[in-house]
């Protein structure tokens, strides 16, 4: 980056260092990052968890969270030195010339005030405009952001508005004082894909219309491709590389970036067709279920065959996890039945035999809560070995070691460790080993990769694929990520509002014609093409 351009810059950061307090000493978490942003430009900050994206984003407002401090470097915003400016000067900029959009709008709106009051607060306090002017502006912005009932929605309280709408209302609030710069901190991460589209396009239009500069923080490459003019890749508080979006996508220079880009390239090899005679390992037929009196599943049916993976996809609230609970017997079906190898299962796990329980195992989304923090890896994996197979002492130990080998963790190193001494990916591997220890025929994988960074997630998918081949396992793969579906599924079941909308082999599912909802879901998944959002919106506009 040539420094001669600096005078055109709105924001210039040089050698930024930030320290975080852990216990009694300070650790550096951002190690000398440079950043340049011109007026009206959108810079994408991308990286995995712990890359320091949010910390840098907040520092651009001259703000650090409790327990963090800027330890070196310079931040210049339009000629103002944010590192050394007084609290008062910094406060005068925030919400006025620099605004912030948080990840969770539901938590970041004050529950005690109406949306429009929170909108008007910044412009009035900073003396930008009158209350009347601010309210008129708010309604205009709500309309531009495609919020329903723009005249009326501002007079609601945050808990009376849906998540996607709140995120747009928060964007409107950030625009209130017509700032020069907005920091977007993962604004769509908490949203479903179909909602994400609306928010992304709304944000992009407003930012373009008002010629506002923005820093867009995300971990999702496809999202950043739609939003940013330039992309900066971060790793553990350091810059990896920076380039304009198109060249970054087409031709990444650094190995780390290339590996990020390559994650989505993993594909399990296609399998032979199911022989029509074989009995499915798991068969869900006409299952309905309810929480209390509220029905959540209606007439759900699908089969899973030996050695194959069925991906169950849908947005939150679609009933995919509930289906898993019915299969495992945690929730009793009110109607229909679940069969393992042709045998009808008792509806509650409490009535199932040890051998029936052994047949179906589960791998959880959050490896943190799936492993008992007070048990060693040896105990965690050893318990099912002993419980189901009756192995004790040396035999049990050998089996545990073999399982650790299977999940590619060195037994001597890990067998006596506690879960807290493992990384996220390693914990997920232990979860896989615990499931394998029961020697099951069928495993439910509940969003097993969604809490992991992309590289780690790919490793887990590869491992699951290898294990499936080794033991001929049947998988039910619950996910909301279609990239994962593409990578690993043989059959796909699409769910919405507790019903199966469409089901069939993967290839058929990804080739039109689709059911309308499948189409909406599939087309909403951001792609790595910078023109994807434009094309999609145009398509939908025509339809």
């Amino acid at each position, binding site marked *: 980056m040539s420094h001669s351009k600096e005078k055109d810059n709105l924001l210039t950061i040089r050698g930024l260092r930030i320290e975080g307090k852990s*216990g*009694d000493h300070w650790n550096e978490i951002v190690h000398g990052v440079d950043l340049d942003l011109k007026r009206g430009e959108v810079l994408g900050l991308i990286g995995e968890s712990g890359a320091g994206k949010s910390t840098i984003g907040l520092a651009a407002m001259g703000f650090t969270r409790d327990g963090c401090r800027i330890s070196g470097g310079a931040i210049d915003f339009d000629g103002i030195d944010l590192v050394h400016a007084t609290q008062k000067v910094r406060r005068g900029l925030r919400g006025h010339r620099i605004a912030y959009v948080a990840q969770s709008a539901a938590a970041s709106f004050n529950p005690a005030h109406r949306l429009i009051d929170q909108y008007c607060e910044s412009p009035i306090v900073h003396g930008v405009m009158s209350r009347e002017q601010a309210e008129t502006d708010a309604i205009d912005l709500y309309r531009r952001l495609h919020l329903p009932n723009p005249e009326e929605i501002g007079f609601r309280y945050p808990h009376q508005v849906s998540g996607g709408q709140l995120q747009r209302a928060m964007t409107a609030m950030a625009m209130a004082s017509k700032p020069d710069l907005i920091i977007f901190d993962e604004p769509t991460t908490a949203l479903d894909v179909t909602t994400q589209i609306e928010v992304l396009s709304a944000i992009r239009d407003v930012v373009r219309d008002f010629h506002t500069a923005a820093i867009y923080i995300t971990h999702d490459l496809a999202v950043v491709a739609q939003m940013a003019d330039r992309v900066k890749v971060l790793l553990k508080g350091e810059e990896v590389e920076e380039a304009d979006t198109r060249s970054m996508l087409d031709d990444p220079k650094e190995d780390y970036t290339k590996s990020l880009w390559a994650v989505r390239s993993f594909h399990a090899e296609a399998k032979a067709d199911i022989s029509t005679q074989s009995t499915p390992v798991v068969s869900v037929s006409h299952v309905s279920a309810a929480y209390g009196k509220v029905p959540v599943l209606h007439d759900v049916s699908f089969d899973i065959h030996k050695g194959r993976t069925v991906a169950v996809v849908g947005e939150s609230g679609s009933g995919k996890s509930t289906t898993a609970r019915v299969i495992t017997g*945690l929730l009793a079906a009110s109607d229909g039945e679940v069969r393992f190898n042709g045998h009808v299962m008792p509806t509650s*796990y409490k009535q*199932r035999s040890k051998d029936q*329980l052994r047949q179906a195992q589960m791998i959880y989304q959050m490896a943190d*809560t*799936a492993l*008992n923090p007070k048990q060693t890896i040896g105990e965690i994996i050893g318990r099912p070995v002993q*419980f189901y197979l009756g192995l004790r002492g040396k035999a049990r130990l050998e089996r545990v070691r073999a399982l650790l080998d299977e999940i590619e963790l060195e037994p001597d190193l890990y067998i006596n460790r506690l879960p807290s001494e493992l990384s996220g990916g390693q914990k997920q591997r232990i979860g896989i080993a615990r499931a394998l220890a029961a020697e099951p025929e069928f495993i439910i994988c509940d969003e097993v990769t969604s809490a992991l960074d992309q590289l780690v997630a790919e490793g887990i998918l590869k491992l699951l694929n290898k294990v499936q081949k080794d033991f001929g396992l049947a998988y039910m793969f619950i996910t909301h990520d279609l990239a994962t579906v593409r990578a690993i599924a043989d059959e796909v079941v699409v769910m919405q509002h507790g019903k199966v909308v469409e089901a069939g082999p993967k290839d058929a599912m990804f080739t039109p014609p689709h059911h309308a909802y499948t189409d909406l879901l599939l087309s909403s998944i951001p792609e790595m093409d910078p023109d994807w959002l434009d094309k999609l919106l145009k398509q939908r506009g025509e339809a």
Partner: protein
Amino acid sequence: MKLLKTAPVSAWFGMIVILFYVVLMLFAPILAPFGETEIVAYEFEPWSETYLLGTDNLGRDMLSRLIYAARNTMGVALITTFLAFTVGGFMGLLAATLGGWVDQIFSRSIDVLMAIPSLIFALLLLTIFGTSLGNLIVVIALLDATRVYRLTRAVAMTIVVMDYVEAARLRGEGLLWQIRKEILPNIMAPLVAEFGLRFCFVFLMISALSFLGLGIQPPTADWGSMVRDNASLITFGDITPLLPAGAIALLTVAVNFVVDWMLHQSSGLKE
């Protein structure tokens, strides 16, 4: 052990004081110059070389009774707290693990029992059953068990919803195994801290009842009743009756300091 080095002054102070009390408790007969109920002189002798802290309203040595009272008051409080934890803790764990109607029945009954202020309830029960030592321990332990139940249930609930407990259930593990291996090890830290707090509470309650003449009965030496027996001295400006009260205060302060530090530690480590 590393933790000990980082302990603040207040926690150190607390630990040393507790140690001191434990020594008093264990070696009371050796440390006390006179017997617990031995009448050695006239009533209300002033402080002297023989009777370091003077004598009480019956002419017994004040210092000796203070030392013996450590054994009696703390012993009763400890037994009571253990009993309360055994009953309340076990019920709380059952309610959290089983859920459903067991939880409903336990929780609703405990709600009603907790709706009566505990000192008042204790007074009512002691009126009816009489103020023997056994009754005192059982009544206070049961009243305190309600509080232990609430806490145990609440912390166990946060563990029961964890996926690893669900995994154990789906594996087919029995109830006791779930409690012993999956839940209990994960709630030990808050339970130990709560033990300290409940001990203080029980200890203060027993002292209060003794002070009212309804707790530990004479001639057993006990800090609460020692304050009551010698209170008339206070009107003469003599602070001797404040010593047993101070002994109570010092111990509860010490325990609270240690518990405060422990709670701080366990919450700090989570962040």
